[in-house]
């Protein structure tokens, strides 16, 4: 908490020392009527930012496991599938991938005779989930590999098949090591969700952009925008730290 205050301090000092002619805090001053309307307009993007991030994270967590498992196979072919996916997806910057999904994917769908329109909401989610899944997959792989080989051998000798071994023996142990970095990855998704603004998703960044266009007060509005993300991420990282402590306590037990 103390650190948060320290980080916010310079901004507040800046705002406080400035003369009213160069600063226009009135645009987001909740005490005035228009200021309050503007603030509400900006804050109301929070819901979509959170929703996009959460759904993308959930998909990425499932997809990541699906991608990680072939990477742990003893068969070379499966490992190659995993490598190709991870390297490919990891190398594509988020913005081009977003354009490809939003503008390109519907054309592929149409050519296959499937009429699935991709709206900004799902376009953003698919892109974020896809791009994040390569990293999630690597987190899973490292976590699962950190469980000693003897565990899966013991599981096999009591008759468990591959999926039972994963489900009952390996993953419950690996999850302690996987969860904290996975939660960390969620911070990355929240920040990257700002890109959804360019395809017209009405989340935090998009709303700030729109208000800047009408109010011509980029500094004040973007300052509030930055603070919105800051608060969001600080809350999540507090959650991550809590999780790490809990997992650590479990491990020691």
């Amino acid at each position, binding site marked *: 908490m103390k650190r948060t205050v320290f980080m916010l301090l310079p901004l507040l000092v800046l705002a406080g020392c400035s003369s009213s002619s160069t600063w226009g805090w009135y645009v987001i001053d909740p005490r005035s009527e228009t200021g309050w309307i503007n603030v509400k307009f900006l804050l109301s993007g929070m819901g979509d930012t959170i929703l996009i991030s959460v759904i993308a994270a959930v998909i990425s967590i499932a997809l990541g496991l699906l991608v990680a498992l072939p990477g742990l196979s003893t068969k070379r072919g499966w490992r190659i599938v995993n490598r190709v996916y991870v390297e490919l997806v990891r190398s594509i910057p988020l913005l081009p991938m977003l354009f490809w999904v939003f503008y390109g994917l519907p054309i592929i769908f149409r050519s296959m005779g499937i009429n699935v329109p991709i709206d900004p909401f799902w376009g953003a989610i698919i892109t974020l989930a896809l791009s994040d899944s390569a990293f999630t997959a690597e987190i899973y792989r490292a976590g699962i590999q950190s469980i*000693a080989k*003897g*565990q899966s*051998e*013991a*599981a*096999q*000798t*009591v*008759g*468990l*098949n591959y999926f*039972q071994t994963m489900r*009952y*023996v390996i993953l*419950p*142990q690996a999850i302690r090591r996987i969860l904290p970095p996975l939660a960390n990855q969620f911070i990355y998704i929240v920040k990257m969700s700002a890109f959804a603004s360019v395809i017209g998703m009405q989340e935090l960044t998009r709303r700030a952009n729109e208000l800047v266009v009408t109010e011509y007060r980029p500094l004040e509005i973007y300052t509030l925008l930055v603070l919105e993300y800051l608060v969001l991420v600080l809350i999540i990282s507090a959650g991550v730290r809590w999780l790490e402590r809990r997992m650590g306590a479990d491990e020691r*037990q």
Partner: protein
Amino acid sequence: MSQAAIEMIGVNKWFDTFHVLKNIDLKVGSGEKVVICGPSGSGKSTVVRCINKLEKHQEGIIRLGGVELTNDPKSVEAIRSEVGMVFQQFNLFPHLSVLENLTLGPIKARGLSRKDAEERARHYLERVRIPDQADKRPAQLSGGQQQRVAIARSLCMEPKVLLFDEPTSALDPEMISEVLDVMVSLAEDGMTMVVVTHEMGFARKVADKMVFMDAGEIVEQGPPEHFFTKPKSERCRTFLSQILQH
């Protein structure tokens, strides 16, 4: 002796270019106790691991109860359900209680009800003389207790054959005998056992057959009375004098 429980004929195995098993011929009759010894790196663990398919052999035939081991997943599963294994490092599941360690296989792989599986688990915990530790986590037990839980876990699958891969090598000296005692009593009950160990006292007591391995080969095998008193090969004599001199 009727049908052999385990039969290995001309088994060869390589790790890449390293020839770990060379023409292994080994027969274990039903109810027989075989002790495999030899210097480290001689391939004795690999022999045991080939029998339950934790390792694949590249040449030769391995039969269990007359059925040949192939790479067909069905056959591997069938084999595994007949063969129990006890590891040097115990390999208990640390996130489960002792009881859950014992019931996981019977419930998930054998389809037993939880009640039946727990009943069976308690029976075998009694068998290895730790009936009152059922609800603890493995980490709360001593090494000797952990290894006895591991033995009980294997027994819960009611295997026809039990394999032991250096079961006492990771234990503190004062805990070795409690594990060996359990193994001796299993042997007395007629369990077919293949044991990789350096515990020659145990070997003398229970072994029907001694096998000495070196550099991937079975150098010598025979009944313990011959094996310990007049080993035929020089290598075996040297090995025995090294481990028996203390």
